[in-house]
């Protein structure tokens, strides 16, 4: 049995005529220590899927098991990073991270919690910005705080919901490298599930890439990325295997699209 087993998950919102079937029989397995990315277009239900996997919402049908036990609510050994930072504006960066550490390790002394928080903030390059409030930080810095907050709790599983979606392209690239470094450097391998709409991002960071489309059985066949982690964007550009994976994922995703203009496909 894999570390994370998501089986037959269904979720609808609304009722009666307004009912929307967002997920229909979604299934995925993740091995311990694996970094899995789900790539899909907007509206295919990936955010909902992640929230169910993370324990924030309950599925209508199906189940999520982590380490053999059924998930009910957010797991103590899990951390979640959202697209929109979700930092508390009245606390400094340090205090925001310390709050998370305090909740994860209540038996630690305040000083130890603070030390853990500042160490992780330094690891994402924010050592000089510890006492700054979120309003005094750029978008990229805020997301770094969110990532530091996630790693500071020493999670066994990490869920990332389009973590860099709100950032500009350059900041996005730099944070991708940061995340790649952090997730391969952790003492214990962190099992990670990330959703993204960027195939490149998925290729850069993951062990397996899963295409997601709309409709029943939305999760397609996962493709393995057989390259050493952490990778650089440069490596990926010239690697044949990466090109093959990229082509496969894009093909799985575009199979879902109906062309608006009839063209001959080469």
């Amino acid at each position, binding site marked *: 049995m894999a570390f994370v087993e998501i089986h037959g998950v269904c979720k609808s919102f609304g009722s009666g005529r307004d009912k929307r079937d967002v997920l229909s029989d979604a299934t995925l397995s993740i091995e311990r220590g694996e970094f899995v990315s789900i790539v899909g277009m907007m509206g295919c239900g990936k955010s909902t899927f992640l929230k169910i996997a*993370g324990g924030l919402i309950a599925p209508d049908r199906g189940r999520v098991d982590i380490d053999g036990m059924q998930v009910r609510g*957010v797991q103590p050994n899990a*951390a*979640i990073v*959202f697209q929109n930072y*979700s930092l508390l504006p009245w606390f400094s960066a340090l205090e925001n991270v310390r*709050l998370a550490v305090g*909740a994860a390790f209540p038996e630690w002394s305040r000083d130890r919690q603070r030390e853990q928080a500042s160490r992780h903030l330094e690891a994402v390059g924010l050592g000089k910005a510890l006492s700054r409030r979120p309003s005094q930080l750029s978008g990229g810095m805020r997301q770094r705080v969110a990532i530091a907050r996630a790693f500071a709790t020493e999670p066994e599983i990490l869920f990332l919901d389009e973590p860099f979606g709100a950032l500009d392209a350059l900041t996005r690239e730099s944070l991708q490298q940061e995340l790649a470094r952090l997730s391969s450097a952790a003492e214990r391998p962190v099992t990670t599930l990330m959703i993204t709409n960027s195939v490149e991002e998925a290729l850069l960071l993951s062990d397996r890439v899963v295409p997601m489309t709309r409709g029943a059985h939305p999760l397609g066949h996962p493709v393995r990325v057989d390259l050493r982690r952490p990778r650089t964007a440069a490596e990926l550009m010239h690697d044949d295997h990466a090109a093959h994976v990229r082509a496969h994922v894009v093909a799985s995703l575009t199979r879902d699209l109906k062309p608006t203009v009839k063209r001959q496909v080469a």
Partner: protein
Amino acid sequence: MKRAANFLLPFVGVVLALIVWAAASSLVPDLPSPLKTWDESKIYILKPLEKRGEMDQGIALLAYYSLMRVARGYLLGMAIAVPLGFMLGMSKTLTRTFDPIMQVLRPISPLAWLPLGLILFRKSEPAALFAIAVCSMWPTVINTMAGVRAIPQDYWNVAKVLRLSRITTFTKIVVPATLPYMFTGFRLSLGIAWLVIVASEMLTGTPGVGGFLWQEYNSLIYAHILLAILTIGVVGFVLDRLMGLLERRLALGHQAVG
């Protein structure tokens, strides 16, 4: 240039008001002119801390008595309003249960609560405190409630994701997020509390600015009525400004609800 305008324009406003007052007093025989008012009142202002009789005291002493009563009634009102505001904000069920009652109690004037207070507590002091508390609490209840309801889903997500205990969620998320709204409520409530104390002193004849006003009216010394009115206005203004200063000190924004 701007500095001069900031000082000059209000000054001109005050002068104009004095002119209107003087004009009105020449038309209405009972209304004292500004000069006459100053003449008959200056002893209260120039000797603000002198006590010559129960109702014949310096203006600072009278204001002090009123303020002390306001402080007690206001704090009592806030002690009830804040928890009530939080409870109503966090529970839709409670709101639905008590909303009709609240809407009926809200518009009741202090002058109507006072007799009830006298029946309940017999003495005028506790009755006044009761009236202040019950009248001034509503803006704080409503604004605190609005503050809790306005907490963005993002912050609730933080509590869920970090698995914060209910107490931590309350102290570290709900309270800081609601604070600006609470302070708007505090400010409005303070204004009402000051209003109520004057009314209740007038009705019960207790020493203070309101009591002094009513007594002087009954003694036909109209200049003192005007003195009392001006004092009430100035003190109310100062209270509001102090509250605003406190708000700014705590770096809170302005988000007002009725």
